[in-house]
C-alpha cells in the first residue's frame, strides 16, 4: 500500500487561519487601548462619567475626565487605536467571509468540523472532557482529525463568538444602526452592545489561550508544520 502524502490542512485553511490570527491580535491590542480611554462599562442605551457604571476596570485611564483610583492619566492613544481597530476588523470580516463561504461550499465544515452524532452523547462528551482535563496527549490518529471537543469549540468560535462580536461591534456604529436599527435595539442599547462586545472579547481570549496550550500539548512543532506547510510528519499509511 503506497504512502499518500496528502495535506492535513488545505492552502485556504492555512492562509485564512493566520490572517485571522494576525487580525485578531491587532484587534485585541487596539481594542484594549480603546478600553483604556474609558474603563467603565454600562448597560442600556447611554452611560458616561455622571451615570453609575455596571462595573469598572481598576486601571488608569487616558482621559482626565474619567474618575479612576489613580492620580495620573495615561498617554492618549485614541487616534491610531481606533483607525487600526476598524482596519483590522475589515481584514477579519473579509477573510472570515472567504473562509466561511469556502468552508460551506467545499464541505470543509461538514467533513472536518461537524461532530459525528454518536460522539455528542453525554457519556462520550464527559469522557473527552475528562481526557482533556487530565492533559492526556492525543493519539496519532488525532493528528488527522479533530476530536469532538475541538470540533464543538471551533464551531462555537466560528459560528457564534465571531459573528456575535462583529454584530455587537457594528451595533456601536451610528451609521450602521441608522440603516439597521434592530441591530442595537435587540441588544438593549448601544452601551449594552459595548459591554457584550467586551465579554465576547474575554471569551475569545480564553479560547486563544486554551487553543495555544492544547497545541503545545499535542506537539507544537508537528501542529505548526501542519498549519503552515500543510504536511504532517506521519503519513496516514506506511509502506
Amino acid at each position, binding site marked *: 500500500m503506497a504512502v499518500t502524502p496528502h495535506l492535513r490542512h488545505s492552502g485556504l485553511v492555512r492562509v485564512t487561519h493566520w490572517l485571522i490570527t494576525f487580525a485578531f491580535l491587532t484587534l485585541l491590542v487596539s481594542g484594549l487601548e480603546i478600553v483604556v480611554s474609558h474603563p467603565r462599562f454600562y448597560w442600556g*442605551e*447611554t452611560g*458616561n*462619567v*455622571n*451615570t453609575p457604571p455596571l462595573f469598572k476596570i481598576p486601571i488608569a485611564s487616558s*482621559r*482626565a*475626565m474619567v474618575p479612576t483610583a489613580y492620580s495620573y492619566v495615561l498617554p492618549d492613544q485614541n487616534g*491610531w487605536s481606533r*483607525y*487600526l481597530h*476598524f*482596519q*483590522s*476588523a*475589515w481584514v477579519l470580516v473579509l477573510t472570515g467571509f472567504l473562509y466561511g463561504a469556502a468552508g460551506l461550499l467545499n464541505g470543509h465544515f461538514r467533513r472536518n468540523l461537524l461532530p459525528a452524532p454518536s460522539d455528542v452523547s453525554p457519556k462520550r462528551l464527559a469522557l473527552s472532557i475528562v481526557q482533556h482535563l487530565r492533559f492526556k496527549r492525543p493519539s496519532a490518529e488525532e493528528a488527522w482529525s479533530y476530536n469532538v471537543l475541538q470540533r464543538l469549540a471551533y464551531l462555537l468560535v466560528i459560528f457564534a463568538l465571531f459573528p456575535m462580536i462583529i454584530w455587537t461591534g457594528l451595533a456601536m456604529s*451610528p*451609521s*450602521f*444602526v*441608522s*440603516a439597521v*436599527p434592530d441591530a442595537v435595539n435587540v441588544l438593549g442599547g448601544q452601551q449594552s452592545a459595548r459591554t457584550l462586545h467586551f465579554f465576547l472579547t474575554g471569551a475569545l481570549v480564553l479560547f486563544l489561550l486554551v487553543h495555544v496550550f492544547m497545541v503545545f500539548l499535542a506537539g507544537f512543532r508537528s501542529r505548526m508544520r501542519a498549519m503552515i506547510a500543510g504536511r504532517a510528519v506521519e503519513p496516514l499509511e506506511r509502506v
Partner: protein
Amino acid sequence: MSKLSRRKLITAGLTVTAGASGLVLAAKLAKRYGLIPPDSRGIYGPGETLTYAAQRLLTRHSLAREFSRSQISKDPFANEVAPLSEEFKRFQQGAFADW
C-alpha cells in the same frame, strides 16, 4: 519545466490582467460615485475607504435613529473643555470690560 506549462503561464497571466483591470475599474467607479474618502491615502487608507464606502452604500435612504422622550438625560453630559488660560480668567474677573 514540467510543472510550469504554457497553459498554466497563460492562465496565470490572464487571471492577473483580469484581476488588475477589475481593480482599476472598481476604483474608477468608486471615485465617480463618491465612495473614496479624503483620508484614503496613508497607512489606514484601505480601512477608512472600506468603512466610508460601506457607510455611503448602506445609508443612502436611512434616517437618523429616533428616541423616546423618556430617554432624555436627567444630567446632560458636557464634553471635556480645555483648561481656561490665565489671560481668559483675568478678562473674566473684569467682567470682560477690557475684551
